[in-house]
């Protein structure tokens, strides 16, 4: 009797996982198959490696964004913060008085630390004065961009150390760029945090019912501010990845990155009102956007048309998601 029930629940949870996570994977699979048929070059080692490179930065930012959106918040400042972090890291990296090793370590540390600091401010201000994060991070979007332009005197920084640039172009097993592996590692670490730790449990719980969590004796503000800080931290990491790949730091980087990150999170099935979602979904969402961009280019679609199709796909993905939720709810009822 009991074993039957556990078997039953196991099946149910399997179907649930399928409905929740794999649904979006099917979309990705269809896209991959379709593009492979339409453009033979699509599935070549070089192109796959290319896609991996292209989605890495968005994936990393979207990982942080997932934490914030799971709480029912949003971070619009990530693109500008990326520009600011790049200027700070770029200054450290090109400081002639520092040996290469020290300069690199310093640049990475400063980039992540500044990202986290700005994230902390976003969260702290939003939580202390109860201002919606949409407004706070919209303000921060301007502040960070202005700071980046001010500090850099609106100049681009380049001439990074050779070892730094070399790592940026390293590819393992011919298909896995170094920065993609960093992105994957962050998805894995993030998933472990969300699924296996007390902190992750709190993120989901607060996103679902903040008042209940507060009355259960938890410091809700701490967890919320932490989530914004993590988001800022991932932007700091994404900044370094961008610099590795492009070899420049500029105050005009990252325009529109926040929208790509939010799109990846939403396509991945994370609810904008919080409490529901996963980083696997976010990763798949970023992959879909990358595959679309790359595939449409390969089949010869122009820039403008690509934007239109990408936009349509974002909306379609979310419509699909509501159906998936209904199906899942029906199944569980």
């Amino acid at each position, binding site marked *: 009797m009991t074993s039957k*029930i556990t078997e039953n*629940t196991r099946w149910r*949870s399997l179907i649930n996982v399928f409905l929740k996570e794999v649904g979006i994977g099917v979309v990705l699979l269809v896209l991959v198959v379709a593009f492979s048929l339409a453009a033979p070059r699509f599935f070549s080692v070089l192109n796959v490696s290319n896609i991996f490179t292209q989605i890495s930065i968005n994936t990393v930012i979207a990982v942080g964004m997932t934490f914030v959106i799971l709480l029912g918040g949003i971070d619009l400042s990530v693109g500008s913060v990326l520009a600011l972090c790049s200027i700070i890291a770029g200054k450290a990296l090109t400081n002639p008085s520092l040996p290469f090793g020290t300069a690199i370590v310093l640049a990475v540390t400063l980039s992540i630390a500044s990202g986290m600091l700005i994230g902390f401010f976003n969260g702290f201000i939003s939580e202390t004065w109860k201002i919606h994060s949409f407004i706070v991070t919209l303000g921060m979007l301007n502040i960070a961009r202005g700071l980046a332009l001010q500090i850099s005197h609106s100049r681009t920084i380049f001439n990074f150390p050779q070892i730094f640039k070399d790592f940026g172009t390293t590819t393992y097993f011919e298909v896995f760029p170094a920065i993609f592996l960093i992105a994957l590692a962050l998805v894995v670490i993030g998933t472990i945090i969300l699924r*296996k*730790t*007390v*902190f992750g*449990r*709190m993120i*989901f*719980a607060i996103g*679902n*019912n903040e*008042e*209940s*969590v*507060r*009355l*259960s*004796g*938890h*410091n809700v503000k701490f967890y919320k501010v932490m989530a914004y800080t993590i988001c800022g931290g991932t932007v700091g990491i994404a900044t370094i990845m961008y610099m590795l790949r492009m070899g420049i730091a500029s105050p005009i980087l990252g325009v529109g990155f926040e929208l790509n990150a939010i799109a990846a999170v939403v396509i991945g099935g994370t609810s904008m009102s919080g*409490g*529901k979602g996963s980083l696997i979904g976010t990763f798949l969402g970023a992959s879909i956007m990358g595959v679309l961009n790359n595939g449409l280019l390969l089949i010869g679609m122009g820039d403008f048309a690509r934007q239109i199709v990408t936009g349509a796909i974002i909306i379609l993905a979310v419509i699909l998601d509501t159906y998936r939720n209904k199906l899942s709810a029906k199944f*569980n*009822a």
Partner: protein
Amino acid sequence: MCYPIDFPLSHESGVLMAANKIIELKNISLVFPGVRALDGVDLSIEEGEIHILLGENGAGKSSLVKTLCGVYTQTGGTMLMDGKEYAPRNPLTAINSGIRVVYQEFNLLPYLSIAENIFFEKLPKKGCLVDFKKLYSDAAAIMAKVGLDKVSPKTLVEMLGVAQMQLVEIAKALSGHSRILILDEPTATLMPDEINTLFELLMKLKAEGVSIIYISHRLNEIFRIGDRVTVLRNGQLVATKKASELDIPSIVKMMVGRNMESEYPFDESVTPSSPLLEVKNLIYQGNPHPKSFTLRKGEILGIAGLVGSGRTETMRALFGADTKAAGQIFLNGEELHITSPKNAVEKGICLLTEDRKQQGLILEMSCVENTTITDLKSVSFRGFLNREKETEATEKQISEMNIKTPGINQKTLHLSGGNQQKILIGKWLYRDSEVFIFDEPTRGIDVGAKYEIYLLLWKLASMGRGIIMVSSDLPELLGVCHRILVFSDGKITGELDRKEFDPESILKLSYSEYLNA
């Protein structure tokens, strides 16, 4: 047969030739899963009468009103309007039949004008545009009728005071051809002179032939305006009588009823010992009356009083749930400085909120996640959750509390009310506390689950914990508690030991501050 109120009826000032029954309820029952809200209620409303509906919290007043106005459909019995069957399918059909309700919580749109609010359901139109000229003149006419003639119909509702908002609600209710006007606790938030104005208006409406069903906790109002009084208890009709035949003691007796003791366990062997929690001069925002009381180890302390008498607010202040509370709290003689629920929980005080869906459970999450949330430290190691420990802890609660769920990973959303409540209690038992504050722990759950919860309270008491139980169910408090504190209009008006327990005196104490008003 519907009279628009603009055309006064031929009879003089409410004196009717013969009592003309507008609506008749016969043997109405309303059953929800696990709850019998109404049980064979008979009621008739006569033309141009003010009919007072009385009963304790949960006696079935709201259910009856909601059945009348089409929110609920009765599960048994029939309703007749003018002798013909009346079966409103939704609130709109009830409105079209002339039944309007002014609820305790207003349903006004604050950023629209008074006129737009009054005619919101049926804005006068000129072509496809709103005919504002007609809107404002129609509104002004109705506003004059309800005595709201000092403000412009163009005023935004957010600018109005509570009394004026109430008049807007009444004006809205009168904008159609209202035959029955239902007022739910209309005077709860009004000042004495505003109450006088309201009563004058009601007498005027009555004179025009509108019937009024009036729900109130303020018993003294009955004799000022009421023609007949109907008392409900536990979803059943106690009696309908003429107001002139009644006095307050007899009404109280009708409301409370007797012979409930046997449903409640009382363990003579558990006796309260030394003081556990001492509250001195506790004040919370919006209430200037300092409150002091003591809870002893092994004691079940009941808190009686009407909804809105400050019971919940006091408990929340004690728990640090709302900011700006002042006063001293001692636990085992040591003063606590509670500024947040986190503080309170860490010191050993827990609160089970009255609203289990909004503030208690996380409905979208599983039994496990809801159970261990009060003490994640004990099921984790260096911040990592131990799923096995969580499962073990949850299964222990589920079997000890006899919770019925298909599995521990079931979302609490899909559990029944009683089982949800048990999960909520279980989560606090899981983190052992010294003081348990239960706010309405048995509201909306069936008798069997109630009994199990009482037994649980006694188990906690026998372990030397202190228990505070806030409840609107008076027989429950009388049956389960060692001692009862009575709240009335934000003050503590009485403290009774078990041997002094008497439903009438408790009810009198809970009404005492309102009677003086």
